[in-house]
């Protein structure tokens, strides 16, 4: 089994896990194995928080960051195997277990390697140093003469294995930020395309996803959501489900409604048949006037994210000005497997199994909702269907908690149906952006201004649906995290280019139509779309080649190198955009885009090649060329896999995806009304990775998504001279843009 998932009820006794640990044998004579049951630390400044070595020499790696289907399991295993010099198959990953793994914050923001992995590397380096010192003592050989290979320390013909050295016990060491890490030039495991550890089981049906998890005596629950987002539950006709085989209970708590049955099919049928009356609620804006609504939403405050010179004055005096407005639709996560969780409450203690990307946070939310002490709640992570942000997993756990409580704490599995996921998982918020630029008499850009209409905040816990519907506590949830920049949707509002006068400002809105959360590259995706298209508009306005134009305003050698490598990879021919002299109904174009992620991390550049059918408005994205620099690469195949995924998923979001709704609720409740990209529509993706082994490793989980919409829009402009400023680029919008041109 790849993951250790505790299903044993007796593991938790006194608020922590019973783990058998062994005392690190400082002296040879104290190697008496003295196993003791004690609470494993989850402190993130302790080596024991992250690592333990057992008497067989197996290394357990405890990660608060979890593998969301990204290959993180393999990458973290590589880091530890490398730093400790043990074979990869001797490392076992335990992830997202609030009793065993440190609280490293939610698995988000492409930080799992950059922050999570770096911390784990340092823990391993500290452990390695300690092991060497113990070995020196034990073997009577100075550390300088010791070699470590395959979990064994050797010198002067003597040797001891980690198992012998650790013998028994914990490291009891603070993580030493100065413990030397290995020189990347000696790496044998990191930087190599190590095969993913989970794929053989996934390809053969052996792998246990969250959805496959069960415990003895488990019941099946389904939720019945309100017909309108803010509707009140007026009445429930329980006779409507009389006789549904297996039905145990209809559970009602405030506006929360659900069923529990002994069989899954019984629960599904009961949820379908249950008749309930809901009040009328029409609190959503009119969809046709969404952008007016966003523009008119109350602004809590303005956040200036960059300010150079005096853009207002220069712009008003500028001989030439151009301006444009961009918008990006609300979108949904659309995991292929809808959210799923199991909860049981035993002796006043609640255990939750889910694919939550933030089990420590979920634990605090469940404690608030259930009005239970934090110590009595244990949340475990089990990998689910791919998740690209905070989708419905936590909510499913909240649902399961209420249903379990209603049946005396018996374990209840809640599996969301497709409509629950499409309708009720939190949404990426709709974003509106105004841009303006001024150009002087010599054709130089002298001012850039932008305004982003985005919801405020966004990094805190997303309220659990069950808590909201049942009228239970949704917080405040006290959290140990500090965010330097708490307004998620304002990321990458600032630009990487050196114009003499710049103001980029976010209007932080008091509300947004849907319960919202982060979906792969929140803010950075929408804002980079607007910025990189508008840069292209400026280049076109000035008759400049779009690549040259960017290079001419970039004061960043690493970014410039990336763009030049991109030009070579894509065989970029310098010329202004749009193309001239194109004939025919189906025309091709190419567009470029560039991002420096959060202006401080991973660099990505891309060229999109598209084909546009002028008769139908259909866009066929044929190819993406991508150059990617995320510093040190842990696993090149893993990074390539992530980039391919980011490009394809974001082509889907760019061309097709938009949450549909009426005044009451989301109406795009399945794949026919919320279509995503299918095989015949998938572009080729050609990738060049820039590896910088001596640089810190940066994230690769989402930066490549951000340049996709702008690269496509710029390519469409190149093909047909029409600018697409509203995601998704549906055929109807393309036709409207052609006609309005």
């Amino acid at each position, binding site marked *: 089994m790849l993951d250790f998932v505790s299903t044993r009820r007796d593991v938790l006794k006194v608020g922590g896990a019973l783990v058998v640990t062994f005392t690190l044998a400082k002296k040879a004579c104290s190697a008496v194995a003295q196993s003791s049951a004690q609470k494993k630390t989850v402190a993130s400044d302790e080596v024991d928080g992250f690592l333990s070595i057992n008497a067989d020499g197996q290394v357990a790696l405890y990660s608060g960051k979890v593998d*969301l*289907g*990204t*290959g993180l399991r393999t990458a973290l295993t590589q880091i530890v195997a490398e730093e400790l010099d043990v074979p990869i198959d001797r490392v076992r990953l335990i992830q997202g277990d609030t009793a065993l793994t440190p609280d490293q914050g939610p698995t988000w923001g492409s930080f799992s390697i950059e922050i999570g992995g770096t911390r784990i590397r340092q823990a391993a380096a500290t452990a390695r140093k300690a092991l060497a010192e113990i070995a020196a003592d034990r073997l009577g050989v100075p550390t300088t003469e010791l070699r470590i290979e395959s979990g064994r320390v050797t010198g002067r013909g003597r040797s001891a294995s980690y198992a012998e050295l650790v013998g028994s016990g914990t490291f009891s060491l603070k993580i030493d930020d100065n413990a030397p890490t290995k020189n990347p030039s000696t790496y044998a495991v990191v930087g190599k395309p190590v*095969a*993913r550890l*989970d*794929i*053989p089981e*996934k*390809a*053969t*049906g*052996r*792998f*246990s*996803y969250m*959805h*496959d998890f069960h415990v003895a005596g488990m019941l099946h629950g389904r939720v019945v959501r309100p017909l309108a987002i803010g509707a009140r539950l007026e009445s429930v006709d329980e006779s409507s489900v009389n006789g549904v*085989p*297996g039905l145990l209970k209809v559970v009602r708590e405030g506006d929360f409604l659900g069923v529990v049955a002994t*069989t*899954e*099919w019984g629960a*599904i*049928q009961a949820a379908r048949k249950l008749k309930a009356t809901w009040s009328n609620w029409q609190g959503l804006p009119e969809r046709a006037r969404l952008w007016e609504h966003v523009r008119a939403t109350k602004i809590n405050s303005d956040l200036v994210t960059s300010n150079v010179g005096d853009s207002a004055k220069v712009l008003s005096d500028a001989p030439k000005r151009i301006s444009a407005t961009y918008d990006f639709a609300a979108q949904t996560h*659309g*995991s*292929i*497997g*809808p959210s799923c969780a199991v909860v049981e409450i035993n002796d006043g203690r609640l255990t939750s199994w889910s694919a939550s990307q933030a089990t420590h946070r979920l634990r605090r939310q469940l404690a608030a909702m259930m009005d239970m002490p934090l110590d009595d709640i244990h949340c475990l992570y089990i*990998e*689910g*269907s*791919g*998740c690209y942000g905070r989708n419905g997993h936590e909510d499913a756990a909240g649902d399961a908690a209420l249903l379990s409580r209603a049946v005396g704490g018996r374990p209840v599995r809640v*599996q969301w*149906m*497709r409509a629950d996921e499409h309708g009720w998982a939190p949404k990426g918020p709709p974003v509106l952006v105004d841009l303006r630029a001024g150009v002087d008499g010599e054709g130089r850009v002298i001012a850039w201004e932008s305004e982003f209409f985005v919801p405020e905040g966004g990094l805190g816990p997303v309220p659990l649906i069950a808590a909201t519907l049942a009228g239970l506590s949704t917080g405040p949830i006290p959290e140990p995290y500090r965010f330097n920049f708490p307004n998620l949707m304002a990321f990458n509002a600032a630009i990487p280019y050196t114009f003499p006068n710049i103001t980029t400002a976010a209007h932080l809105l008091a509300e947004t139509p849907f319960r919202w959360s982060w979906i792969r590259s929140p803010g950075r995706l929408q804002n980079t779309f607007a910025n990189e298209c508008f840069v292209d508009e400026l280049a076109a306005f000035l008759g400049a080649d779009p690549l040259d134009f960017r290079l001419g305003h970039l004061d960043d050698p690493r970014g410039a190198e990336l763009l030049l490598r991109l030009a070579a990879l894509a065989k970029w021919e310098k010329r202004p955009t749009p193309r001239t002299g194109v004939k025919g109904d189906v025309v091709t174009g190419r567009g470029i885009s560039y991002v420096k992620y959060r202006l401080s991390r991973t660099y990505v550049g891309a060229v999109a090649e598209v084909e546009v059918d002028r008769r139908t408005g259909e866009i066929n994205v044929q190819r993406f060329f991508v150059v990617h620099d995320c510093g040190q690469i842990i696993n090149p*195949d893993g990074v390539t*896999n*992530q980039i*391919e*995924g*980011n*490009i*394809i*998923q974001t082509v*889907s979001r760019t061309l097709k995806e938009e949450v549909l709704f009426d005044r009451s609720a989301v109406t795009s409740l*399945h*794949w*026919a009304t919320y279509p*995503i*990209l*299918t*095989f*015949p529509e*998938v572009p*080729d*993706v050609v990738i060049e990775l820039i590896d910088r082994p001596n640089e810190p490793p940066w994230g690769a989980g989402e930066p490549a998504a951000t340049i996709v919409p702008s690269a496509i829009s710029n390519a469409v402009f190149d093909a047909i001279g029409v600018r697409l400023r509203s995601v998704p680029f549906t055929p109807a919008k393309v036709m409207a843009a052609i006609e309005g041109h």
Partner: protein
Amino acid sequence: MPTSVLLDINGRAVTIEVDDPGMPLLYALRDHLELKGPRFGCGLGQCGTCAVLLNGEPVLSCETPLTKVANKKVVTLEGLGSPEHPSPVQQAFIDEQAAQCGYCLNGMIIQATALLATTKNPTVPQIKKALADNLCRCGTHLRIIRAVQRAARNA
């Protein structure tokens, strides 16, 4: 009233007790037989993740009532191979590292197995067409196409 249903799953005759013989095959496979290959994705016939082979043909088990599988042979992902002895198509998916979360793989491998049974050397457009109704949210499509090509080459 519980009813006994006789099924032929992965070459094994099994009898299960169900409340409703109109129940989709998917729940019998997952809940009664504890098979994990066929997966719930939509229950609406829109995503392909629940696919199994029924007498060699790919069908969506979320839409196939038990009444329709009597006397037919059901093969699931587990029936094709195991981590120790993967089928050629499974091996090709492993070799091409064709997964991110892998939740969609069941449908992809079942569909590809059916395609290769009838089309020895499919072109890329043929592969794309055969998999057109199988959704992948992670964007693993290119690797999946390469895996199918590899399986065809190795056949």
